[in-house]
């Protein structure tokens, strides 16, 4: 196990030959190496702090002078009159994200359980790259797919059908919007975007549950589904939650695909099929023209700060759950 002939080709004494070099040279190299490593690590650690401080400072003219509750809940967004209520955009972001989560989470968790517990190693090795490749497809391409496929289907079939058959009893799915572009379309496309992410992380979490647990359960006479239940919903609960939070944080900040599909109408939506507007979309669509109106940039930065805070909290929660699982020997 010595680091000799690591490459396996030819005769190389990689580690040992270096030990024969003169000590001052090695010491000097140690100094340079260690300070390089420390320096870059410090840089990365400080970077997040710099980003957050910059955002908060730029947002301060609005963030510090308009009450937080008014920013969050006020519906009047009218920069030329100096009113900066982000309520409409917060609502849009929440509805789109919620739609995506409701559609994606149960399906993704169940798929991950199937992949981890019910398939053979060979099929899993085949599926893993596919899932990861799908997770890497950029959001504009998902957006294009949404325009080409999802929007027509929603416009022609889903929205009219739901409106006709259940719209009377559930006003949430009434159809006032003839275009097909809206909260539901973008929520559905987002669901498809976060599906591979949730599957990929959950599958890894599930596989990290030690086999002894499964064997013990089988030995007391549990069926496979009962074993799976305990593995997934007791033992790997924290890890699965972390996977969901990761999907959530991707969905909340997603920009281009949502801008392409949500309609960008600054209104309080009455139904799932209405058009809407999201925080990220607000930044993307209006950031270029910000110089003319005072406080405009600051208001947009406030939107960025909101997104930043949500992601920060979500990630800390996910990390706490993952760490708890690691501490119990669940992972690695």
């Amino acid at each position, binding site marked *: 196990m010595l680091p000799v002939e690591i490459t396996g080709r030819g005769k190389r004494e990689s580690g040992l030959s*270096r030990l024969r070099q003169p000590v001052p040279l090695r010491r000097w190299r140690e100094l340079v190496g260690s300070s390089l490593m420390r*320096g870059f690590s410090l840089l990365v650690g400080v970077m997040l702090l710099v980003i957050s401080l*910059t955002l908060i400072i730029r947002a301060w003219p609005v963030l510090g002078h308009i009450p937080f509750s008014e920013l969050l809940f006020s519906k009047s967004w009218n920069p030329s009159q100096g009113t900066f209520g982000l309520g409409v955009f917060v609502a849009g972001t929440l509805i789109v994200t919620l739609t995506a989560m409701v559609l994606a989470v149960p399906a993704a968790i169940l798929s991950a359980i199937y992949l981890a517990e019910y398939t053979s190693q060979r099929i899993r090795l085949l599926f893993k790259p596919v899932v990861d490749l799908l997770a890497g497809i950029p959001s504009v391409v998902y957006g294009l797919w949404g325009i080409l*496929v999802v929007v027509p289907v929603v416009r022609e079939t889903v929205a009219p059908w739901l409106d006709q058959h259940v719209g009377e009893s559930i006003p949430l799915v009434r159809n006032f919007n003839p275009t097909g572009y809206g909260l539901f379309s973008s929520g559905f496309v987002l669901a498809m975007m976060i599906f591979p992410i949730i599957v990929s992380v959950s599958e890894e979490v599930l596989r990290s549950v030690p086999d002894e647990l499964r064997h013990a359960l089988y030995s007391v*006479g549990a069926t496979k589904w009962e074993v799976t239940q305990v593995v997934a919903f007791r033992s790997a609960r924290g890890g699965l939650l972390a996977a969901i939070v990761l999907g959530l944080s991707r969905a909340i*900040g997603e920009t281009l695909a949502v801008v392409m599909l949500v309609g960008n109408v600054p209104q309080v939506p009455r139904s799932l099929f209405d058009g809407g507007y999201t925080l990220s979309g607000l930044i*993307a669509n209006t950031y270029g023209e910000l110089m003319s109106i005072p406080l405009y940039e600051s208001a947009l930065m406030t939107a960025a700060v909101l997104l930043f805070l949500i992601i920060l909290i979500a990630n800390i929660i996910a990390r706490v759950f993952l760490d708890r699982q690691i501490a119990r020997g669940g992972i690695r």
Partner: protein
Amino acid sequence: MKRKLFVRALLDKVWPAVMLLCLLGAGFVLSSILIAITSRGLRSLSWEMISTPPQRAFYLGGAGGILNAIAGSLCLALGATTIASLVAIPVVLYMHTYGKGKRQTLLIRLALDVMWGMPSIVYGAFVFTFIMAVGLRASLLAGMLTLVLVSLPILTRTFDEVALMVPTDLSESTLALGTTRTELAGMLLRQTVPGLLAGIFLAFARSIGDGASVLFTAGYTDSMPSSLLRPVASLPLAIFFQLSTPFPEVQARAHTAALVLTAIILLFGMLAYVVHAHLGRYIIR
């Protein structure tokens, strides 16, 4: 256990069927993405499209192609990935040599995880205010820096995961030979080359596909990338802008651009796997 045997046996059959159904349903929908993009993209794909920059009246349906966007995207992603890996390598080596088991390492990991989840539009806004303060405009350089922020967490965390798999015995026996920690870092680097390469390819694929971050920082132009301080076109934005025009010819170009972009990303994603599987054999486990 208190349930009837029949119910237990039934559930044991029903739930796997439900799960398989979910998997197949999602697989069906997701494969429709690839089918839709490929079939639409192939319709308008031509040599002219991928070998010439836009000519006059391009956005009204005139002649030309998307070479400016392809070249711009490659420049942006290549620069960003290079810078990001130059930062990521020392950071990961620090986490596994000097910082091993220290509080700093945990904090760096947490910071990187938060950065991974951060919406790229927020990075775009951050770098935009930054370059405005310095007096620059949207440019290739600014776009690259934004993409560094996007790809750095991906690269570092992927590389970190691989470094975690290096056996403790190996590190300890290296130190037992009397090596300094920097020399230990050299050993770790050698052990993690396949993972590093895989991470670089993944980060490249992620940064070439990210449109929201370069929206304000790299700008858009119809000419080929020429200077670090000039705006540059990119494939995601080419798709985004060309789709919003009312002309079908121009929209068809967006479809082709999407096909090209997806092809590049799938290529690099697969490269990451091949490298990982092929070079992984030379590692001590």
